[in-house]
C-alpha cells in the first residue's frame, strides 16, 4: 500500500496535522494495520520535499506545537494519476497457506510426518472463525461504512483462500499420487 498516496488522499478533506491524519487513516481503514505516528511524520516530510504537500502553519492550542499540512496542485495531479493507475493483478503468488500446502504435499509424499489434509481442515476452522468475527462486525447495528467496506474486503479474500483450500483438498489424492510417480 502506498502510504504517501493514502495521506495525500486524506489531505483532500482539508489541511491537517500528523496526529489527526493518523486518526483519520485508522478510521477509514479499520481492518488495516494502524499507521505508526513516526511513519506519518516521515511521509509528510517527503511529500513536502517532493512538492506534493506544503506546510500551512502551526498552532499550539495550549499543548505542543503542531504543524498543519495541505496538499498542493502538484499533489492533486499526483493523486489523480495514482487513482487512475491499475494495480497489476497479483503477478506472483506469495502466501503462507499456499507455501505450506505445497511443502506439506511434497513432504508427505516423501514419507515425512506431514498431513496436508489435516492442515487444510484446521486452517478452514481458523478462517471460518475470523469470517464470523468480521460478519458480526459488519452486521452490528450502526456499523459505519468504513467498517463494512473493510470487512467485505477481508471476507472476500478469506473466502478466496477457502475456495482454493477446498479445491486443493479435493485434489490432494491425485497430487500425492503424481508426485510419488515422478
Amino acid at each position, binding site marked *: 500500500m502506498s502510504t504517501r498516496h493514502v495521506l495525500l488522499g486524506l489531505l483532500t478533506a482539508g489541511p491537517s496535522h500528523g496526529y489527526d491524519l493518523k486518526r483519520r487513516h485508522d478510521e477509514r481503514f479499520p481492518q488495516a494495520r494502524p499507521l505508526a505516528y513516526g511513519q506519518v511524520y516521515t511521509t509528510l516530510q517527503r511529500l513536502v520535499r517532493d512538492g506534493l504537500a506544503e506546510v500551512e502553519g502551526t498552532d499550539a492550542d495550549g499543548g505542543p506545537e503542531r504543524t498543519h499540512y495541505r496538499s498542493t496542485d502538484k499533489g492533486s495531479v499526483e493523486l489523480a494519476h495514482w487513482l487512475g493507475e491499475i494495480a497489476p493483478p497479483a503477478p506472483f503468488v506469495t502466501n503462507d497457506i499456499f507455501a505450506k500446502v505445497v511443502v506439506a504435499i511434497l513432504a508427505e509424499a516423501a514419507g515425512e510426518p506431514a498431513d496436508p489434509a489435516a492442515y487444510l*481442515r484446521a486452517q*478452514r*476452522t481458523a*478462517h*471460518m472463525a475470523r*469470517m*464470523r468475527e*468480521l*460478519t458480526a462486525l459488519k*452486521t452490528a447495528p450502526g456499523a459505519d461504512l468504513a467498517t463494512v467496506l473493510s470487512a467485505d474486503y477481508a*471476507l*472476500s479474500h*478469506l*473466502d478466496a483462500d*477457502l*475456495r482454493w483450500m*477446498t479445491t486443493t483438498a*479435493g485434489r490432494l489424492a491425485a497430487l500425492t499420487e503424481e508426485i510419488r510417480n515422478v
Partner: protein
Amino acid sequence: MTPSTAPLITARGLEKAYGRTDALRGASLTLGAGEILAVTGASGSGKSTLLHCLAGIVTPDSGSVRYDGKQVENLSEAQRTELRRTDFGILFQFGQLIPELSAMDNVALPLLLAGVRRAAAHQQAADWLGKFGVYGQARLRPGEMSGGQAQRVSLARALVTGPKVVFADEPTGALDTLTGEQVMTTLVQSARESGCAVVLITHDAQVAAYADREVVLRDGVVKADEPWAAEHFSRAEVRGND
C-alpha cells in the same frame, strides 16, 4: 450464542441409502436451542438428505433423531406432519411453492392451516414479504417470479409461523452477494429475536459465516469443526455404523 443446556435436536448415526448410493453413512450432530448451525460440504455429500432426516421428511434406514424430547422416527406419519407444521419452517433447495397461488397466498397458507384468520394471515404474510424485499411481487405466481424472488418468498413462508427450528437449504443459492447479505441479515435477526434455531445449508463460506458454528459433511459423515462439538460427536463416530 453457544448452546449450553439440553440440545434441541440430537441426531445419532444417521444412515440413508438410495438404491446403491449411501447418502448418509453414520451422520451425527447436535443443534442447540437458538443455535444457528451452518452445514457445508461438497455437492452430493448428503446435506439435503441430512436436513430431510432432521426435519422428519425422510426416515433414515438407521440412527435416530431426537427433537425436544421426542424420537422423531417413532412418530406416526400424521404426527410428523403435525410437528413440521407447528414447530418447523422449511426452505427446500428447489423451492416448493404452490404454482397456482400468488406469493402472498403461498406465504399465508401455513398460517391459514394453523387456523389464523384470513386478514391477519395476509397481514403477517405481507410483513414477511416486505422483510425479504419481495412485497412488490406479492401478487405474482411462482412462475412469474425470478429465481431469487421465489427463493425469498419460500423463506418468508418458512418463517411466517414463528417456528422453533428453521431448516434452510441454500437460502441464498440464487441470490447476488448484496441481496444474499440482506436475506441473511433478516434471517439471523429474526432468529435471534424469536430464539429460533436455524440449520443453514450453504456452499458459500460468506453465508456460513453468519452462523454460530459450522459442520462439514464429507461422504455422508459429519466432521465437527469445534472442540465442544467434537466431544459431543466423538463417541457416536467411534461407534460408527451402529
